[in-house]
């Protein structure tokens, strides 16, 4: 993907704001990773501002009512809203300049950012910029699902905002598209709000979440595997979905008034795309210290690994903070390095670049994703035909986080070409349980 020289939507430039606000670090995005980074930076003495385009801090956990947040970073188990509020309060107490309802509308690609908020437009001059803009679910249109265009087509994000933030009604009978963790979070939300779930539909051969989570949320909900939504029907309001079983071509019409498209995460990378940042697959390319391809610009959270749980994002934010502090102190910016590439069926690997063998990635782990279910095999790191590391797995599950020990990165040769993460299968695929 290449860069775009245009400033972005509403590109007719207006008058430039006169006021310039100077900070050491401007964090774009006030979700778990951005706030965790800001707290760490502020505690180390840097001046930090966070610009958050929503009216409240905390990101996606604000509207996910289920529990399970905070285990790895805060060492306790919290609900999403409590977790979001905890980070907002940590940032406030640390003395971070927190700007909500504030959108970054222009970016020079360096430390120069223009924001819009109800208090006006502002120009920021930052020594370093940390992009923490998160990710969203791929909506119906981008999945090219044909049919009518009625109301009642949602994503988990819009569903949970309706129910958790606004207390709005949703519908009576829903079909959930996707069968990954978030899909069952959507099922949970729907049923809690009195919406019956007529079906969960996945194009993969089986559910991708833990059996216990599925059992807890979607007991007795029919799971249509190897199936796709072939059409949405209804004028005005959803009336039904047509589900097509891929192997047989058989079609079934499921009456419903709501369709929720879940998961299939897309990083919110508009700022990174509008300026010439290098990309690795869907994500801005970052190295082990979360440096992008531009000096002084860092990226963390689900912008660079869509999507990991909030606590993993927060720990990534802290990791980014340490890198930013190092940069503010020394000005050092490594240019040379090698790319880390993911070979099919792996979808991507994070980080996607290695510029030092002494710095470790966040949590000392690589993260990867697979596109399809696999049988047993080995995740192998290879450079120029040399195997650096191999880890056996009983099988990989798509749409699920796959971590890998990163210790072997110490043995990478930074002048020996790209490092490849390869999946080597052993024998036939495991059958569905």
């Amino acid at each position, binding site marked *: 993907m290449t860069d*775009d020289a245009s400033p972005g939507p509403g590109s*007719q430039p207006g008058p430039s704001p006169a006021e310039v606000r100077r900070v050491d670090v401007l964090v774009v995005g006030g979700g778990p990773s951005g706030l965790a980074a800001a707290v760490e930076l502020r505690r180390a003495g840097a001046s930090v501002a966070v610009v958050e385009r929503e009216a409240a801090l905390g990101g996606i956990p604000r509207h996910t009512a289920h529990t399970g947040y905070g285990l790895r970073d805060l060492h306790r188990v919290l609900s999403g809203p409590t977790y979001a509020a905890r980070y907002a309060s940590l940032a406030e107490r640390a003395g971070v300049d927190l700007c909500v309802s504030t*959108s970054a509308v222009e970016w020079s690609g360096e430390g120069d950012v223009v924001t819009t908020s109800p208090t006006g437009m502002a120009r920021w001059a930052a020594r370093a910029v940390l992009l923490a803009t998160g990710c969203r*679910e791929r*909506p119906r249109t981008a999945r090219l699902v*044909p049919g009518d265009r009625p109301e009642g087509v949602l994503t988990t994000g819009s569903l949970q905002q309706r129910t958790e933030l606004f207390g709005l009604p949703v519908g009576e009978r829903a079909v959930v598209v996707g069968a990954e963790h978030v899909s069952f979070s959507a099922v949970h939300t729907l049923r809690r709000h009195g919406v019956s779930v007529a079906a969960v539909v996945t194009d993969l051969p089986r559910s991708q979440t833990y059996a216990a989570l599925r059992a807890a949320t979607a007991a007795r909900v029919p799971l249509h595997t190897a199936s796709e939504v072939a059409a949405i029907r209804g004028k005005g309001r959803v009336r039904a979905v047509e589900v097509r079983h891929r192997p047989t071509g058989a079609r079934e019409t499921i009456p419903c008034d709501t369709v929720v498209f879940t998961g299939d995460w897309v990083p919110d990378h508009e700022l990174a795309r509008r300026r010439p940042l290098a990309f690795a697959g869907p994500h801005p390319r970052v190295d082990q210290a979360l440096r992008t391809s531009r000096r002084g610009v860092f990226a963390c959270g689900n912008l660079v690994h869509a999507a990991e749980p909030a606590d993993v994002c927060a720990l990534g934010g802290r990791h980014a903070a340490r890198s930013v502090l190092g940069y503010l102190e020394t000005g050092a910016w490594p240019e040379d390095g090698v790319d880390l590439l993911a070979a099919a069926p792996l979808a991507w690997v994070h980080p996607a670049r290695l510029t030092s063998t002494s710095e470790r990635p966040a949590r000392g782990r690589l993260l990867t994703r697979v596109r399809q279910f696999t049988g047993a095999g080995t995740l192998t790191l290879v450079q120029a035909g040399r195997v650096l590391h191999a880890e056996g797995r009983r099988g990989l599950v798509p749409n699920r986080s796959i971590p890998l020990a990163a210790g072997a990165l110490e043995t990478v040769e930074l002048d020996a070409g790209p490092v490849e993460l390869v999946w080597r299968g052993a024998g036939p695929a495991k059958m569905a349980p």
Partner: protein
Amino acid sequence: MKASGAKERSYDVAVVGAGVVGAAIARELSRFDLRTVVLEAADDVGTGTTKANTAIRHTGFDAKPGSLEATLLRRAYPLLEDYAARVGIPVETTGALVVAWDAEQLGRLDALAARAKENGCGDVHPVTVDELYAAEPHLGPGALGGLAVPGEGIMCPFTTPLAFATEAVANGVRLELSSPVESVEHLGDEHVLVTPRGAIRARWVVNAAGLHSDTLDRMTGHDGFTVRPRRGQLIVFDKLARRLVSSILLPVPTPVSKGVLVAPTVFGNVLLGPTAEDLDDRSATETTHEGLSDLRAKGRVVLPELLEEEVTATYAGLRAATEHADYQIACDPAARYVRAGGIRSTGLSASMGIAAYVVDLLADAGLELAPAATHHEVHMPPIGESQLRPFRDPRAIAGDPAYGEIVCHCERVTRGELRDALAAPLPARSAEGLRRRTRAGLGRCQGFYCSATIAAMLAGTAADRGGPERTGSGGVPVTGARIR
């Protein structure tokens, strides 16, 4: 005489249909001292063929010379140029390139250029392969040559009918929404148009009923034509694709169809389409797997990198094609009836020309047209990329902080704009109405971030009104579309 009040049920002219053609006619009539009513079957203006098209501003360079379509496109061009600038309708004259991909198409370019000259488009000129790729570096490989059509452009298909209708209403035209005409009767020298919400009497009837114009034609005792809906499916790509194309990329047209084009939109997206499928069902506005696949295959040839970008919308519209190639616009003076039907695919571009022509026909047939004593113009909120949007306007934000609160992040729509659209003279009554007026929710996330906030704003407005409003109201100057 102007309409004396909302209860007035007898009119000089009833325009049936508030698509872009009906709205343009109503606006044209509002300049005269007439009692005019517009009857629209849907609950908003511009919801039929008008909203689901390619949003191209055609010059008519390829129309059949001497046809009504060619004549009225040419007549409309300067009218729209002037009106759009005054009223704030997003229009960009990007120019178009007709690209030939094989020898047969290349061979037809000369004739097409000659036709353009006949149609008054003297600036249409051939371009070499090198010039094509210099102008459009992302064009797919294999182009053999082309024609440049400098006058072609893009326009906003939502603001245009809204501006016409808002101006009409501001000048005393009565707009009756949710009022499909079920039958037409005669009482003395008046037509009686029966709708589920009551009957309306009018001396003259103008048929601008789009897909249903043939049905209305028969109700009035005529039998001029039959509408054969032609479905066009379209794909809209993310704003990040906008860098890939600077002008409209047209195929060499065939006598049957203009073919599949790639064009920027005034909102900064890129559009691919339309398909051309002849159907019988006048409500078949759904997209299909086959249609979308076909478009993607054709788009891949024209602009391969486009297919790598995210899709932000797919939709389908029905063109009111008939057994005739040309527009079906005619007057029956004895019946005091004008039909403006069969506006197949260039209605948005030709609407102001069609309106002027229809008013000419009415005048010739004996309708007395005295200029109204006063006339209000309107100003529409800026929603195009070429305009200064509120989020980028420090003065607007200083005057009203709601213009600095972005609610729809993908399209950068502020709370102030949404509030205005809900309170405009022709207010949004649904999420769809809001989308068309503001773009909110039409971006890449399709409401992941904003749809709940917008639903809450809509629910609040409906509660304030005591339920969704159903009737159109006379020109009440408020925010959003401003009446001057």
